[in-house]
């Protein structure tokens, strides 16, 4: 694997649509659950161990070369909120465009052909990593990092939080990110023998409820 290639894929400026999404942080801020850096850290930790873990496991499995359509169904089954399924496919479509343009491959083309409106983002992310010559560990790390960096950036804008405080939150979470990514890869490696039921299905009901409410707001800074 190329460490520099991993940085290209993980860069927050990778043009795959993430900038318009808060990862549920906007709804959590409005509900009073994030008020400061401590609230941001608690939110990120919760997201990391639930939807972050699931996304990382899906991405790692896709990077291993498991059928992305099976994983797309598995992602649907693990995303109870219709609003979040829509967001995941929208971001998956944007990731697909960026990936095909950056690291073209027949596998990406094949998935784009059968899911023209987008497969779940973590599945496309894993396949993008594979097309870039990266492995499941890399894909899982990008997924867990996205799970926390999106909300951190959004909260800087939503609360005018000191950006250094937000970055310290991410740095403190780093060892935990490594552990969750390792768990995700371990689950991914069980899929070839045990099927997609070996993948984690941790859920975060408040993220689901918040996303459903947020989708109905008339005025909002972020798309989700």
């Amino acid at each position, binding site marked *: 694997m190329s460490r520099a290639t991993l940085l290209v894929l993980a860069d927050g400026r990778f*043009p795959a649509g993430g900038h318009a999404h808060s990862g549920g942080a906007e709804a959590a801020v409005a509900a009073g659950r994030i008020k400061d850096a401590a609230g941001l850290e608690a939110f990120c930790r919760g997201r990391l161990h639930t939807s972050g873990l699931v996304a990382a496991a899906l991405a790692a499995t896709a990077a291993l070369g498991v059928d992305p359509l099976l994983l797309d169904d598995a992602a649907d089954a693990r995303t109870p909120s219709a609003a979040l399924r829509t967001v995941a496919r929208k971001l998956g479509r944007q990731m697909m*465009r960026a990936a095909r343009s950056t690291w073209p491959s027949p596998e990406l083309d094949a998935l784009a052909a059968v899911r023209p409106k987008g497969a779940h983002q973590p599945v496309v992310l894993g396949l993008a990593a594979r097309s*870039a010559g990266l492995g499941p560990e890399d894909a899982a790390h990008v997924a867990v990092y996205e799970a926390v960096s999106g909300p951190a950036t959004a909260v800087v*804008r939503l609360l005018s939080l000191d950006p250094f405080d937000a970055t310290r939150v991410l740095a403190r979470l780093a060892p935990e990110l490594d552990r969750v990514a390792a768990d995700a890869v371990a689950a991914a490696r069980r899929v070839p023998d045990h099927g997609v039921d070996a993948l984690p299905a941790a859920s975060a009901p408040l993220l689901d409820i918040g996303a459903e409410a947020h989708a109905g707001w008339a005025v909002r*800074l*972020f798309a989700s």
Partner: protein
Amino acid sequence: MHLDHSHDGPAAVSADAVRPDGRRRALRIGLGGPVGSGKTATVAALCRTLRDELSLAVVTNDIYTREDAAFLLREAVLPPERITAVETGACPHTAIRDDISANLEAVEDLEDEVGPLDLVLVESGGDNLTATFSRGLVDAQVFVIDVAGGDDIPRKGGPGVTTADLLVINKTDLAPYVGSDLQRMERDAKEQRAELPVVLQSLRSEHGVTDVATWVRERLAAWTAA
């Protein structure tokens, strides 16, 4: 792994002039400029002027509401299926310049669903003087400023004023009321822009959006001939 651009795939990945089905895609024109300068009003006027001669559609980029799309729908300048709103996550310039994926998808979906189209107008959210569109998203861009925003804006320059394919100085009817010197604005703009065109416009006058519409027709003729 190969890094060469591939044209074999089932969907476009960039600003290719030819759609996956082999047809030439619509001309895309971006309209940017500061908040309140009259971008949406100019888009509405263009739609009214051009809709009987062209097949067109509009993508709006609202910053935190859906008001621009709602305005165009309320004014019924086009059927609702020809107007799409993109959400920009507090960064309107990012969605038109640094990460254009959501806008590209909106444009392509419009071509798929209501096409074939001759022209797609992409209106940016109100931004500052540095906002410009990526060449991966639009073929030409219009920058709209207004006389009430201060008559020193053309002199200040910046990427929008200096490099846009067309600069529109809007709301000229307000100049006497806000103490703006139109001649000075036009002179400063021409100095900043060398050969690039400048239009002074009042949508309240009979002449309205005529000059901008003429420029759009010229761009379209050049695009079709290319």
